[in-house]
């Protein structure tokens, strides 16, 4: 059985372009950096105050003052720089990020995202998510297609408290890649291990299908 996290991360990576300035959320989004083709170099911003994030620090070589937003000890690439939170979110809100990749509790056909509050159960808080989603040119949601109960995370209208209105541009799941268009969510690619019927059944809103064969996601 495929490793869902790695599968999603690999397909997210395929959407990033050489030279992109990107903020990667904790979890699957951060994994994406491991799957970039050699021809693609991206610059990674950590909203806690670093641009030019390098690989994780090797054990014993950690700089205790240098972490990423997920609190991992990391390194800074040559040409990178550090800054305070005010500057960090100036970069983010100012539209200087080419892309942000983050997780979802729900995402809908209008490009609305909910990922900071599951009332009664879970309150991670927005952290930098609202700022990132408002500011980045491309908003890529990386998420499993369904909840653990099998409910669709991709829905007609989000019912959970929103992170942002209409800013999601692309959704990458273990089943499909979907682009947000004026007319709704358009299927861009499908996983090789499911049928179109299964995908539709596991999705909470209508999908716009491409003409002809549906391209396959990277395996």
């Amino acid at each position, binding site marked *: 059985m495929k490793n869902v996290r790695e599968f999603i991360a690999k397909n997210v990576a395929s959407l990033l372009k050489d030279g992109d300035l990107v903020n990667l959320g904790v979890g699957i989004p951060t994994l994406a950096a491991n799957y970039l083709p050699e021809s693609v170099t991206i610059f990674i911003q950590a909203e806690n105050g670093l641009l030019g994030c390098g690989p994780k620090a090797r054990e014993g070589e950690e700089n205790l003052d240098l972490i990423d937003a997920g609190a991992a000890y990391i390194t800074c690439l040559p040409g990178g720089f550090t800054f305070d939170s005010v500057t960090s979110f100036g970069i983010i809100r100012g539209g200087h990020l080419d892309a942000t990749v983050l997780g979802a509790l729900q995402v809908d056909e209008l490009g609305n995202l909910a990922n900071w509050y599951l009332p009664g159960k879970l309150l991670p808080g927005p952290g930098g998510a*609202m700022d990132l989603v408002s500011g980045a040119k491309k908003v890529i949601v990386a998420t499993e297609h369904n909840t653990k109960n099998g409910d669709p995370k991709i829905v007609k209208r989000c019912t959970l408290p929103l992170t942002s209105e209409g800013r999601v541009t692309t959704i990458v799941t273990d089943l499909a890649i979907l682009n947000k268009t004026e007319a709704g969510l358009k299927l861009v690619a499908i996983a090789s291990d499911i049928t179109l019927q299964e995908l539709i059944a596991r999705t909470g809103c209508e999908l716009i299908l491409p003409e002809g064969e549906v391209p396959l996601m990277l395996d």
Partner: protein
Amino acid sequence: MRQFRDGQSIMVGGFNKVGVPGTLVRWLEESGVKDITLIVNNCSNAEGSIWSPAAKMIKDGRVSHLKISYIATNSDVCALYEAHVLDIEIIPQGTLAERIRAGGCGIGGFLTTVGVGTMIAEGKQEITINGIKYVLEMPLAADLALVKASLADPMGNGLCFGTSKNFNPAMASAASYVMLETDRLVPVGEIGYEHVDVAGIYVDMVIPSAEEKA
């Protein structure tokens, strides 16, 4: 310490475990003050966290208002929020930073698209300019700021290594009284005048950190 008083609003710098004035946070908790408005980005209640004393204050009900951005690392906050026993204002991280900056630099409010159409915008004035909806966010200042710098001189000028700047420079500018904790006290002039992150003019007291870095 006489700097800590019931009813104060207190900002504490730091992001996750970096740039947190751990000794000052401990002193704050030990002072026994209550009815505090606590303004932080995050506040982990994990055992052994540098935030533990502040997390204890929240759990013990000594924090009456909490303004916070990232809550995932503190399960108590979620429970207190759901039980409606603590007044929590949830603030997007960039808006938190910008509101603190505004509080320190005489900006009376600012327009941002962050939070438009979400719970964050509830009760706030919305202004549409050129077809774009903005929410008007207000400045945030405090009675007291507890901040951290890697190096500091006796005048309160601080230099922050790595990603330890985070909220510290802005919070130092936005509080009536500012206590700066430092890993290393250096003589005046040792921090080059081009490299000051926390401005000494804002700082009222400098203390050496008693924390060990983990």
